[in-house]
């Protein structure tokens, strides 16, 4: 397995294994718990190493076995501290009535500080490369720590196993997880222990975080836990799709990270001979990029797509208003010159010139209007559309006058807004209710329907 492939595979597996428990953390509004677990795992690792060093000094552990024991110790230490973090936070929240966010902040920052303190304090007994723990050393782990002859990095295998385990747990506990995320009270009435689900999830997350240590380090794990899931939530609306897209986003962000690692530095910093930067850091960036794209461009709710949709709708309404203006000018035997139209718009309508330009070109594209010299002319279909709009406007005015005893000058505004949203069924009902009127309250003729 080549170095590049191994790097991508390892980071993909790490990302996907983290994304699964992370999804449930996000759904249960515990995203920052992922951050807390990532920070406090340092303490777990340090404490574990101290214990192992102590055991070794006491002769209980064979020095040649130290590394293997250390690996298990890491796991145990991180899980204990992780579950401890969750437990202490719950304790503070419920027994001491501390605000949940603050409780989490107090617990994890204290434990993290303790971890940092021990790193320096016990530096003689235990050598911890804080950089390694905090930022990960994916590049060297993948290159050197391989299984036998195959070149498969051990980290890939570990992350792969954790991924499979997390997927299995999700499958087995799907109902419980789903209920605890979306309707915990109902779950409790059904007898599902929310405590078990909570601590079970925390344990799984803690194990996952430790497994991803060597790949991405503990702090960047937060990104892998939360961001792919958040992106998926922006894009999908059913839980199954969200799960699938989460895994996809995790995998894509790993690949994208590697691509960015190879291309960006040489583009911007080549003077300094920088060819490669931390893949783990780039993974945080790439998953954030994917999130940004979803945030801006997702089909429903994307900031950019929403703005475009709203603008389009504004233009549609303006186009109909324009048809109405032309019809009324024609009724009064006034020339529908560009200037006349602009005057009416300025006087009675609240539309910017930018929008009006768009509206006019939209009408032209649809063949409802042509520009004849300096005058706008309604085409036959255009005239029909305009008549239909004005008909609805005036029917609504009759309706308002009949039922609400409004003075004459109050009717136009309301009808002006509503006319765009009266469809055929409502029009028919209005005609029936009002007994097919032929003039509006201002004395103008109501256009006949086809």
């Amino acid at each position, binding site marked *: 397995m080549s170095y590049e492939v191994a790097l991508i595979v390892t980071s993909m597996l790490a990302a996907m294994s983290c994304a699964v428990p992370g999804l449930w953390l996000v759904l249960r509004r515990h995203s920052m718990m992922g*951050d807390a677990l990532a920070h406090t795992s340092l303490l777990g690792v340090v404490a574990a190493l101290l214990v192992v060093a102590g055991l070794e000094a006491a002769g209980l552990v064979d020095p040649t076995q130290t590394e293997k024991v250390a690996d298990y110790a890491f796991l145990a230490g991180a899980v204990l501290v992780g579950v401890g973090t969750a437990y202490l936070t719950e304790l503070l929240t419920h027994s001491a009535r501390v605000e949940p966010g*603050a409780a989490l902040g*107090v617990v994890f920052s204290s434990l993290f*500080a303790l971890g*940092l303190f021990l790193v320096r304090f016990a530096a003689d007994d235990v050598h911890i490369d804080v950089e390694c723990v905090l930022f990960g050393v994916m590049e060297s782990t993948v290159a050197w720590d391989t299984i036998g002859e195959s070149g498969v990095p051990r980290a890939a295998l570990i992350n792969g196993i954790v991924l499979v385990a997390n997927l299995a747990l999700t499958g087995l506990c799907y109902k419980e997880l789903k209920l605890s995320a979306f309707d915990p009270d109902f779950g409790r009435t059904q007898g599902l222990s929310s405590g078990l689900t909570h601590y079970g999830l925390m344990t799984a997350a803690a194990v996952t975080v430790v497994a991803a240590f060597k790949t991405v380090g503990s702090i960047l794990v937060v990104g892998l836990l*939360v961001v792919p899931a958040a992106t998926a939530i*922006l894009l999908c609306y059913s839980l199954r799709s969200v799960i699938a897209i989460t895994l996809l986003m995790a995998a894509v962000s790993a690949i994208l990270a590697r691509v960015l690692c190879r291309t960006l530095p040489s583009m911007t910093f080549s003077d300094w001979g*920088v060819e490669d930067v931390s893949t783990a850091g780039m993974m945080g960036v790439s998953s*954030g990029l994917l999130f940004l794209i979803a945030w801006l461009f997702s089909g429903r709710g994307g900031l950019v797509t929403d703005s475009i949709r709203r603008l389009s709708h504004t233009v549609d309404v303006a186009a109909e208003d324009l048809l109405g203006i032309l019809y009324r000018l024609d009724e009064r035997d006034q020339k529908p010159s560009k200037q006349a139209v602009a005057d009416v718009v300025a006087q009675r309508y609240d539309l910017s010139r930018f929008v009006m330009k768009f509206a006019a070109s939209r009408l032209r594209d649809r063949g409802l209007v042509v520009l004849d010299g300096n005058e706008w002319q309604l085409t036959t279909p255009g005239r029909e559309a305009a008549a239909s709009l004005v008909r609805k406007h005036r029917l609504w005015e009759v309706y308002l006058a009949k039922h609400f005893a409004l003075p004459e000058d109050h009717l136009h505004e309301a009808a002006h807004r509503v006319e765009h949203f009266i469809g055929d069924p409502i029009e028919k009902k209005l005609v029936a209710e009002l007994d097919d009127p032929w003039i509006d309250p201002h004395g103008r003729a109501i256009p006949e329907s086809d």
Partner: protein
Amino acid sequence: MTGELFSTLTSYNGLMVLLGTALLGLSAGVVGSFMLLRKRSLVGDVVGHAAVPGIAIAYILSEMSVAGSGKSLPGLITGAFVAGLVGALTTLAIDRTTRLKADAALAIVLATFYGAGVALFGVVQKSPGGSAAGLKNYLNGMAASLVWDDVKLFAIVAACLLIVVLLTFKELTLLCFDTDFAAAQGWPTVMLESLLTLLVVAVTILGMQSVGLILVVATLVIPPTAARFWTDDMRRMVLIAGAIGATSAVVGVAISSTGQKLATGPVIVLCDAALFIGSLLFGRKNGLWWDWKARPKEAVV
């Protein structure tokens, strides 16, 4: 040993460090009180992590324009400030414009910005200006190397912060307790919210000099939470939080100066934690000891 400790602490350097970190602890405790009420304590964590790429970018830009100028403090502080502010605002934006909740917004911004910071630090490491060791101090704190100029700067910034808080105390309190009422009364809630965010970012940038960016959240969260166990009155809470913050800073610096292996930042936070546990147990309001004492005794039939 005590004699040595005393002379170290009262030396010029020692006093600078004590004064500087005390001011930082005080400001953080005060500003953190409002964040606690706002239920946004963890914003400090996000701002701290979001500031990291700002430092790296400031360094890189300086180095690219004038080689060797990378480590100049004003540039780095500006970079950290801007990045932290952008991070905080992005959090608010995600919360307001998507279905995601506040906690997810915080985590997303933290992870993405920090990832960028780590990646950029990789570049910094390989730059001709040398290693990133000097810059790493902003992550881990460097209280021990504070000098009079730094302390002067802190004093000014901390004083400004405290004056601002004093002037806007009523408004900020109202914002934190009942935003909707404040808005209905005509207070400019958006501006106040932005002001609060600015204060948090400013405190974070100050804090990075003493406890480091990673631990600054502790100084923002722990003192106010501890103060809650002593009083319900907002004014008293702010004072107590500030006092706790300043005290643990001073004690922390004193303790860490007794040994080489005692990292200043973590020790300050551990002092905060100790005072927290003390308040949790013995605080006059809701302290667990008093609750236990006041529990109803067995009924006598």
